[in-house]
Each structure stands twice: as C-alpha cells, then as structure tokens.
C-alpha cells in the first residue's frame, strides 16, 4: 500500500467536499452562535455562558454528524452509481488504498470543519466574556475561553471518526438510504450501549444476558466519548480517560475500516 495514492485520494475527497459546499455549514455555525449568544443574554438568568458553551459543542457534534453520515454513505456507493469506480480501479490503485483514502479524506474534511468551528467558538466565547465583563463572571463554573473545552471537541472528533468508519462500511455494500438508516441506527445504539452491559437487571435468562454483553463490546460505544457536560461544568476529565477513549476509537475504527476493505475487495464490479 502506497501512502502517496492514499494521500491523493484523501485530498480529492476533501476538495470534492469543498466543491460540494460542505463547509458552508461553518457560516451557519458562526451565525447561530453569534445570534444565540446575543439573544440568550436576556433569557437565561446569568447562565448565558453555560448555554453558549453547550450550544456550541452540541452544534459541532450535530453538524459533524450530518457531514459524517451524509457524505460517508456516498463515499463508495456514489462512485459505483456514477460508474467512476471502473476508471478508478483501472488505475494502479489497490482497493484498500481506495477505501482508506476515502476514509481519511472525509476525516480531513471533518477535522478542518471542526478546527474552524473551534476557532469561531472560542472567538464568540471570548467576545461574550468581554461584553459580560465582571458582572456575570462569578456565576461561571469555568473560564469562558477554557482550554479544557478542547477535550470535549477532541472527543467529538473521535465520535465522528467512528461514525464515518461505520458509514463507509455500509457504503461498501448497501444503497445510500439503507446505509444512512443503519449508520444513524448505530449512532443511536452507541449512546444506549450501557444498557446492554447491565442487561441482567432486566432479564433473568443467562444466554440473553451473554448475548447482550457481547453486543455491548461489539457495537460502537459512543456514550463514554461524550464529555461535553463535564467540561462545561469544570469537572476534571483525566488524561488517562481521554487516552483510553482515543485508543478504543482507533482500534474500533481500524476494525470497521478493515471490514469495509474486506467487503469492498470482494465486490465484483463487472
């Protein structure tokens, strides 16, 4: 596998997303944050900083989720539908290079997207802190321009990276609609996963409990990657916790992308 080919495919995915005006969502994000921070100062009884932080992180996650799913599901299937896959595979490109390049390309798009959102987010927080001045400062649990927010943003990125891998996986063998439904389904399941672990509190059947436990470990576990609330309330998030989450995400993504490569490598495009 050559990194040059992977890089070329990744960059072309990024360029395509820019051409498709995906980054327009950044404008919405900025306008949303500025408008909301202006409106909220009158509505929240001194809680505007908390609300702006919550809203900014939720918007980053939500916008990223839509990009991850709706672009992710078309990464492979669109090439097949447009029949451009034939000319691509006729070139000296291995199928695993194609899949990994596509994955990294969308990841790059999400990274750039999230990075710009983070800059806008900090700018708005800084501006609100400046406007509010000393009046509301005693109410804040954490400083306005809090570096700890980057922890939550990093975890959002990892969540999105897992979602992209899942979308790409489904994209290799199913239609975009089905892939979207399955990806969203797994995203929702990923937040309810803890229930599967504690299934013995719901049913008595041992086999069912074991199956539920197995599903807990097999399905994506996204809830632990959500530290938005902790960060906003200045609850310490240990570095070890973040590292373990990062390691889990990297391994899980590797498994899903590997499975996608496996399926895509066996597809017959004749």
């Amino acid at each position: 596998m050559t990194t040059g080919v992977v890089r070329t495919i990744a960059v072309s995915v990024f360029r395509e997303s820019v051409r498709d005006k995906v980054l327009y969502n950044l404008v919405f994000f900025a306008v949303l944050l500025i408008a909301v921070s202006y409106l909220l100062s009158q509505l929240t009884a001194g809680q505007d900083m908390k609300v702006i932080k919550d809203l900014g992180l939720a918007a980053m996650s939500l916008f990223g989720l839509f990009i991850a799913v709706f672009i992710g599901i078309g990464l492979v299937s669109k090439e097949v539908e447009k029949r451009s896959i034939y000319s691509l595979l006729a070139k000296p490109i291995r199928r695993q290079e194609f899949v990994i390049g596509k994955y990294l390309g969308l990841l790059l798009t999400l990274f750039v997207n999230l990075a710009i959102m983070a800059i806008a987010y900090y700018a708005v927080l800084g501006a609100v802190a400046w406007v509010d001045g000393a009046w509301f400062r005693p109410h804040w649990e954490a400083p306005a321009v809090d570096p700890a927010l980057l922890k939550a943003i990093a975890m959002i990125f990892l969540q999105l990276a897992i979602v992209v891998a899942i979308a790409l996986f489904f994209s290799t063998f199913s239609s975009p609609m089905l892939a979207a439904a399955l990806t969203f389904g797994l995203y929702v399941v990923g937040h309810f996963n803890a229930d599967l672990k504690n299934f013995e509190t719901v049913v008595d059947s041992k086999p069912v409990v074991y199956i539920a436990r197995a599903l807990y470990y097999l399905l994506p576990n996204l809830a632990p990657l959500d530290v938005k609330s902790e960060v906003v309330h200045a609850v310490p998030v240990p570095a070890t916790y973040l590292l373990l989450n990062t390691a889990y995400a990297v391994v899980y993504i590797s498994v899903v992308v590997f499975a996608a490569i496996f399926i895509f490598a066996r597809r017959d495009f004749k």
Partner: protein
Amino acid sequence: MTRRRQTGIFLTALAAMLAVAVALQVVRDRAFAFSKVDRRLLYVSNAEVVRRAALSYDALLADVYWIRALQHYGGERQKAGRERHYDLLYPLLDLATTLDPRFTVGYRFGAIFLAEPQPGGAGRPDQAIALLEKGVAFNPNKWDYYHDVGFIYYWNLHNYEKAADWFARGGSLPGAPFWLKSYAAVMLTRGGDRQASRAMWTQIGQNEESDWLRQTAQMRLAQLDALDQIDVLKRIMNEFAARAGQRVQSWQQLARAGAVRGIPVDPSGVPYTLDPNTGAIGVATNSDLWPLPTEPAAAPELGGAAPPVPR
C-alpha cells in the same frame, strides 16, 4: 430584457409576495385569537425519557428547559390581577436538572421560584425541597443545596428542627463556610426571632455570588425593616387610640395629631396601608416589598421569650 433587469424584476416580485404573506398573517392574527399557540404545554413530562432520547445533547436540552422554566415563571409572575398558575414550573425544572444533573443554578434558583409564596412564586416548598434533594442525591458534597433546603424549612415551613438538621449536615461538609453550623444552633435556640432572620439574610447578602440572590436578600432585609416599622406604627396607633378613645381612621389623622411625621412610607418609598375598620397596617400591593413574608413563629424551646410578632 437584460439579465440585470430580469433579476431586478424577480427580486421586486419576491419582496412584494413576501410583504403580502406578512400582511395576510397580520390580518389573520388580529381577526382570529385561536391561532395563538398554547405555551402552557409540556409535550413530554417524564424527565428520564427525555434524557434517554436526548442522546449526547442532554446538556443543550437542559438549557432549553431551563429557559422555558424561566419564561413560564416570568410570564406567570407578570400577569396582573389574575390568578397565577405555576403548575409547569416543577416539571420543567425537573426536566432541566435530570438532563443536566450538575445544573446548580437550576436547582437553587428553581427552588426559590417554587418555594416563594403565591403570587410571587409557586408556593410549593415541598417541590422546592424535592428538587434540592435531587441535587443532593447527585452531588452529596455540595453544601449550598443543604443550606437552601434548611432555609426553606426555616423560612417557608417554619420547621426549625429540620432546618437545623440540614444546616448541620451542610456545615459538616468539606469546604462549607463556618457560619453554616452556627445556623443550626440559631435554629434550635432562636428559630422565630426576627433578629435571627436578619442575621441570616445579611449573611446571604454578603456571601452569595449571585447578584439575583443578593438582591433577594436585600429585599428580604427591607421586608424585615418594614415589619419592624409596622410594629412601631401599631404601637403609636394603639397609644393614640387609647388617648383619643377612638380607632384611627387614617394616617392624616395621626399626622394632624403629631403622632407621625406625614404619611409613613415603607423602605421602598410606598405609603403603608391602613385599614380603618380593622386597624391592620401593611405594605401596599404596588410596593416592591409586597407581599410581606409570613414571619417564622417563635421557636417552641423559647416559649414566649421571642418578641410579639404582628400577624
């Protein structure tokens, strides 16, 4: 026709149609009152269901419910001359704090809104305590919640033993201020003493970080001043009545006799009311201090030792 002219015509037509749509809405809304949206509606009342459905957006949803709670409280409070219904306040606060269990302001301000007697609040100290107990269950080391529960038992329910218990529990927590334990002792010895109330509100006014709570403390202190002044006025009135052999009919009557200097005003600058039939003195409904709190009764341990309190 040039392209520029075409664009101009298109934009003009678009603006005109939009203006017509706006005009139609204005006419409809003026003509038909039933198009109003019922704001007193809670689609989902089970907080746990909402929390589960919120996925990772629970904190944001908590903010939405907090804003709704504020709007509901503010909206009802501003209703003039009508009965106020705060029935959605507890469910909204319960939703906000279930979605974000660390929402300190949600618990503390929410409890004040709930405990405040009608018409200024919901008049439900039981719900206020339930909300704060939820906060204690999630964060047992937050002394502020213990303080607030104790204060509701003291100020709203006049249950000094329970108040003392909560103050003592809060005072024993790490990081709790030194004065919290002394509150417990004050409760058991001088529960219904107005001076004890004054000392506690002064403490809150000096220590609270929240401007809103500080203002509330100032207002409470002004109400206590008003109660003191009313006591003095009652004494003057009774003495005058005993001398003149007739009930006082108006402030002017007292002022003419030189018993008071002009019409007495409360600490917010609004004249006190005087009922000529019963002789009752109070603050006017347009005063910032209205309604005056129902003062805590004397602690049973003291018997009749506490000063007489006007009811």
